Structures are given as structure tokens and as C-alpha cells.
């Protein structure tokens, strides 16, 4: 691999340390967003805004790990094909939830069918 010569490796030390520091910082930021009042976006407490920010930070961290630590920033094409296939397949696994949501026959608001958990019907209509 191109970046494997001793000189290139010595150069990379600082980069690895920097990425390590960014990952540590990102972790602290995630916790801060969840716990520090003036970093609490959206409504008070956990809500969609916190969800998006938390997942965005996690995605950035994961991307850095994959690109730098796992050397995906300079890898052979075959590796991209292999890993890309896994990612796409995983995406479809997650997307399968959509089938449950958009099922025209059975969709009842994601409730489990346990008695008492039925889709909420306004009291007046119920009578």
C-alpha cells in the first residue's frame, strides 16, 4: 500500500493522535448536548433536535474512524465495493421498517396489538 513506507508512517502519527483527540472531544460534546442546559436544543429534555445532533456527531466520529483509522481514505477499489455492499445491505435492513409503516392493510400506528394499546381513538367517536 502506498502509505506504508516508514517515512509515511512516521508522518501519520500526528494525524492519528489528532483524530483520537477529535473522537474524545466528540464524545464529550455528545454527552454535553444531552446534559448541559444551555446546549439543550429544541424542547426542554430529549427531543428530535437532540436526536439529530447526537446521531450527527456519532456519524462524524464513525466516519473519521472508518476513513483514518481503517485507512478507507486511501484503499484499493475492491475494499470499497465489499464494504459498500455491506453498508447498502444494512441500509435496506433498516429501511425494512418502512414496510411495516406503509403497509396499507395492517398499519395501526405501530402498536403491538396488546389489549389496551390500540390506536388512540377520540373518546366521542368511540361511543
Amino acid at each position, binding site marked *: 500500500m502506498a502509505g506504508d513506507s516508514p517515512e509515511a508512517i512516521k508522518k501519520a502519527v500526528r494525524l492519528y493522535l489528532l483524530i483520537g483527540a477529535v473522537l474524545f472531544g466528540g464524545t464529550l460534546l455528545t454527552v454535553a448536548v444531552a446534559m448541559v442546559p444551555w446546549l439543550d436544543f429544541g424542547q426542554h*429534555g430529549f427531543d428530535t433536535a437532540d436526536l439529530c445532533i447526537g446521531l450527527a456527531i456519532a456519524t462524524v466520529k464513525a466516519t473519521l474512524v472508518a476513513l483514518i483509522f481503517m485507512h478507507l481514505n486511501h484503499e484499493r477499489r475492491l475494499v470499497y465495493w465489499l464494504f459498500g455492499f455491506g453498508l447498502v445491505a444494512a441500509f435496506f435492513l433498516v429501511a425494512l421498517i418502512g414496510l411495516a409503516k406503509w403497509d396499507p392493510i395492517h398499519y395501526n400506528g405501530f402498536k403491538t396489538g396488546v389489549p389496551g394499546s390500540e390506536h388512540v381513538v377520540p373518546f366521542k367517536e368511540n361511543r
Partner: protein
Amino acid sequence: MEIPYIFTPRKDTGLVNSKIAIWLFLASEVMLFGGFFSAYIFLRLGADYPWPERTLPVLPGLINTFVLIGSSVTVIFAWMSLKLRKWRQFQIFMAITVVCAGIFMVLKGIEYNVKFHHQAVRLKDYAILEGHLGFELKEGVHVGHGEQPKEEDFALNHHGKKIEEDTINYSTSEVSFNTVRYHHDWVEEIIAHAEAGGTAVTLKEDVVMGKGEQVKVDKDGNTEPATTPLSRADNFAKGSALSMKLLERITELHKDARAHNADLRITAFRKAWTVADENSSGKTDRQLAPDVKIDESQLDLHHEQPAIAFTVAPETVFHFRPRDIQENGSPATLRDGTALTGKLEESPMVFHYVDALDFRYLALKVRQKLGVDEHSDAADGAIEKAIEESWVMAKNPELKEIWEKQQKAVGLLAAELAAHKRVPTEKDKYRINWQEMAYYATTPLADIKIDAGKYVMPHVDTQPKEQFFGPNYEGRAEQHAFPHLEIPREQVAFASKFAPAWNTYYAIYFTMTGLHGLHVIGGALVLAYYLFFGKKMYLSNPEWLANRVEVGGLFWHFVDLVWIFLFPILYLM
């Protein structure tokens, strides 16, 4: 045999083979974890109960994140050291990596252990209580109010372990074991309990399994008369004492009798069938069937004993775990088919320390009943009324007082938040966690206040140790931080430890972190192998070892990558 392309890249792929292999494996791992992340989203969106967001202690999870990221950096440095041919440096970095894996698993173990010993119960009115159960005391031992029982005061089961105060107590006058299904452990328990209490458990009637001399068996399996040892006895007198040996002997004879009788019946059926077949040619099997009859009285059938009844004198209260009772009537049946005659005694669930009170589920149910949207405050009055009428509020003045103090604190928080056009969360309003409970229990109503600008409910400060192991119950018991509560069995709707059974959050939490933990262990084993057994390869072919470490490192980074997502979704969201 020489393995090709281990340290020189293949021409067509430009890669060493091991690297292609690990990326193929990682692609399959992405799909595996992708499926579980999908399950997480599905369970969370479909939960028919309030999802317990931000429920785990953050500090252990945060430390574990740091530990994994740190080890990801050191595993890279270990690989770089090999590339630069610095064996000593490689050893140090790899050792740090393996130690980090160890720390991760220890913290995970503590976290799991705390969950497995933490009790939750949902009452019939949807109030949820959390805490720790007390332990059964030996009969006759009484501990005064506010005193702690001593170690020797606790009753022990036959494994020598303390028994949690979550038992079904059944006053038993007769117990009948299913001859082939009885559960060894539970019989031992009954024997041990009877012996401790001086109760006699004896055969209710003669059990005649054969034509041998009748013997009476004592609890050690000795026979009277002793001329026929238990291993050969087949005729047992009423009044023989219950013992595993006696049960096992009767089971043996019963099974022999079943086998013998089955042989006789099958032979007789075959004969009858042949006769019927010969007598009526041209008939189908179904038409033949009514003609096939055997006279069992003509067969030399042995006695079968499907159940063995014992008399318990005097009537004694035996303790059973709730999940072991199958039917609760008279007779009651256990899951192994044991029938108990007698009556059910009061079997309360006794919380030694209640450390959380949660009305979020109750609130959800009230809203559902009234058809009110989850984000609307239209049902707030009805929820408040339902809480005030709930069993906990009606029966426990201590918890009622804590709830009233909490109401004052919620008012203060709401006023603070109103300045920013915000409102308290469901969790603020309807859940009292242990830090809050300890605060309310030790602060008079007039002194309740919240810290300005922090926008959190008032709480006691947590000691570092409590971040890992949960509240210091004994230390805080002196201030009566956690109320004592006895819950009658009929109020209990569902009870469980904080295990996968409690709800789908804990189910997916244990599944995902457990699977991830297995990956940590597997990765650490491989890396430790390079550390301890890599020297020989390093001396003969260092490039090969470097490639191996790179491949092991890729897996390790992947484990780190998964945790980067697990930490926020399980601890912070």
C-alpha cells in the same frame, strides 16, 4: 504448505488476501449490527409504554467510550511499531489495547450486575416502582423497626442462598408429586424446609409397585425391616418419609411398569389386529379398527403410580417463587406438575428500599383512555387525580409525602422554564428517580427548591461509587432516603429484575451490548494472541505479523465504530 499473497499483494486486487477476507467479514458484520439497529428503531417507535430514555448511568458508558477510542489509537500505534520494526514498542501498545478491552468488560459486567439485582414492579394501576427487595428471615426471628437484621437471621434455601421477599406462601397439608416430572431442586427445597421446621412429610397411602415385602422408609432411605434394601424394595408402607431416594425408586419402578405394560398392550393389539384382519378380508384399516379390542384384565399389567401423594403434618407454609406457580387454586399446581392441597397465605412483595417511583405509564394509560394526544396537557387534571387515587398514594404516606414535595419542585421548574417558553418533560413530572427520592425524603416541604439556571429537578449529589454501583442503600438508609413498602400480591401486575423480560428497551439493550461485548472479547483474544505468541513470527517474517495486526486492528476499529453509535442511543437518548 506456502500460503500465497500473505505479505505480498496480489496483482489483480492489489491487496493481500487476509485484508480482502477481513473486509468481507466486516461487511457481513455491518449487516448483522444493521439488523439490530433496525430492531432498535422498530421497538422504540412501536413501544406501547413510555420508552425509558436516558435511564442508564452515563459515567460508566462515557468511560467505556474513552477506553475503546483510546484502544483504537493504541492498536494503530502497535501496528506502526511493527512496520518500523520496534518490537518492544509494539508490546507496550498492544498490552495497553488488551488492558483497555479488560476495563471495558469489567465496567460492562458491573453495569449488568447492578441491573440483574435491581427489582421493578408494575402495579395493577400502572404505577411502577423500582428498588431492592428484602430477604426472608428465619422463622421466629423478629427485627425491630429501624434495625438491620444480622447475617445469621436470614433464612437460606437449600443452596445456602438468601431468599428474596418475593415468594408465594402456600400453607400445605398435602403435596402430590408427578412421578416422572417432579423437579429435583424443588423437592430438595421442600425436604430442607420441612426438616428445618420439624415437619413430617410422609406417604399418604401404601404404594404397592410389586409383590415384595412391605417396607417403611425413613428420610435417609433406610428401610424397616432392613432385609429388603430400598434399591430392591417395591412395596412402600404409608407413613414412609419423603426423600429423594424414595422418589427416585418409585419413579424407577413406575417407568419399568410403564415399559412392561406398553409391551403387553402392543403385543395384545397386534394379535387382535391380525385376528380381525383375517376374519374380515377386503375391509380397510379404518373399517377394521372398531373390531380390534383387547381385554386388559387378561393382561398381567404392573401397577403404575403416576402421582405420589404425601401428607404434611403439621400443616406447613412452603415458599415458592411466583414464576414456579402454574395454577393458583386448591389444589395449586407448580410448573413441574406438583399439586399442593391447602390454602394460599398472604404473599406480599416486600421492598426493603423503594428507589424510584414512576407514573409515566399511568399517565400514558389515562391519556389513551381519554383519547388525548400525548403532547397535549388536556389530560393533566385527570392524570393527577388518577395518581392521587393510585394504590401507592393511598397506602404509603411516606411515598405520598415524597410525591407532594415533587409536585412543588415541578411547579418551581415549570416557572423557571416558562421564561424560555419551555415546559417540564414527562420524566420531570411523573418520574422520581433515586437521587430525587433521596432529596425529597431528607428535605422538608418548605425547603424544597431548585437550582436557578440548571433546569433540573432537585436531587442529592451522587458519590462516584454510586455512579457505577447504584445508590449506597445502607449509607443512605440512616437518613431514611428510601421508603420501605409491602405490596400485596393482588396489586402486582408484572414484576421483574431489570433484565430483558422487563421491557423491550432492556431486551434490545442486553442484546446489542451483549453482542458487542462478545466482539470485544473475541477481538481482545486475537490481539492478545499477537502480543504473547507473535515473537516467533516477528523474528522470521515481521511483515507477515504486521499484516496480521493490521487485520486484527481493522476488526478492533469496527468494534469501536459500533460502540460510537451504541453509546448515544442507549445511554443518552
